[in-house]
């Protein structure tokens, strides 16, 4: 079944069933492997992408739900003002340890700043609670989000 997806500004006609998780299509069919598979049950946040500007867990979203809506992945989040600030702050603070969860962290952080340009610690906790980092980079993530907010 052919699905038309708009990912990072590019149209893709992909021949997949409409109930396949969006993540699988992004990684295996389109070849955008920056988005990671973590838990597969929307519990860790590693697979976060934006659909219609809203962060979603692509491991549980059927690709059919994303048809007709712009999808943004880590490969293009730097094209947005908030995404670029977040990525710069990530480098400046040197947030990443192993890095596996970080594309999801950056996608959630960018969505947070887009909705709330000056988040408090509580605001950051409330949104970033859905993204797990087994290296425990949480203090640096919080510092980087604050740095990115200041740069705005």
């Amino acid at each position, binding site marked *: 079944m052919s699905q038309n997806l708009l990912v990072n500004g590019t149209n893709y006609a992909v021949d997949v069933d409409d109930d396949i998780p969006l993540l699988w299509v992004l990684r295996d069919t389109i070849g955008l492997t920056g988005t990671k598979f973590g838990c*597969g*049950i*929307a*519990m860790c*946040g590693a697979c*976060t992408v934006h659909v219609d500007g*809203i*962060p*979603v*867990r692509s491991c*549980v*979203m*059927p690709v059919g*739900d994303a048809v007709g809506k712009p999808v943004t992945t880590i490969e293009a989040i730097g094209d947005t003002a908030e995404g670029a600030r977040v990525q710069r702050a990530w480098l400046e603070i040197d947030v990443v340890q192993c890095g596996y969860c970080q594309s999801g962290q950056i996608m*959630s952080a960018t*969505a*947070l700043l*887009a*909705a*709330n340009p000056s988040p408090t610690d509580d*605001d950051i906790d*409330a*949104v*970033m*609670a*859905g993204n*797990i980092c087994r290296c425990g980079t949480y203090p640096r993530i919080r510092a980087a989000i604050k740095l990115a907010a200041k740069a705005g």
Partner: protein
Amino acid sequence: MAMRFAAIAIVSVLATAGTFVLVGPLRGYAETSGAGALKAVSDFDTIVDTRARSKAIFEEASRVLTHPRCINCHPATRSPTQGEDKHPHVPLVIASNSSLGPLGLACSTCHGPENRPIVGSRMKSIPGNAHWSLAPASMAWQGLKVSEICQQVKDTSRNGNRSHADLITHMGEDHLVGWAWHPGEGRSAPPGSQETFAALVAAWVKTGAECPD
């Protein structure tokens, strides 16, 4: 020695019985009352006193209201619980004023318009509904007695300004309420059906919307 053990046994039985009499069976709190089909309105016809019948009907309807599928999203705090044991939602989610979660981690980040099957996990599906959201703070039910839930349900300052007629419509036709009976694989459903439940609510209203003591 045998006499002494017998005396201890008798005292233990008396103490247990005394506690039971003083405290009563620990019912009345917002917990499900176990298995069994949801009774129909006609099952209450034998209660002649209208007020008593109204109270009994609400008690029965409360088996639905206090079922995990319903009360998990009527928490005492602004964070939902989940599962059959009503444990805190994982990940921690804090409902903002919208009851839809903060922008950046809204309910819809994980919950879609329909239940989503999961393959290869103990979690069989992720629940979903187009109206997925937490109940407003005024509709917190966890920790309340059934009588207190009843008072809340009919208090227009705490029930979304719903009239009794609105309550029947809400309980009987609301899509998110109806989801409880179609919760997706891996979750139990409340007893009965939305239709039976709505009939109980309608009968409760018709008999004066009395609340259990």
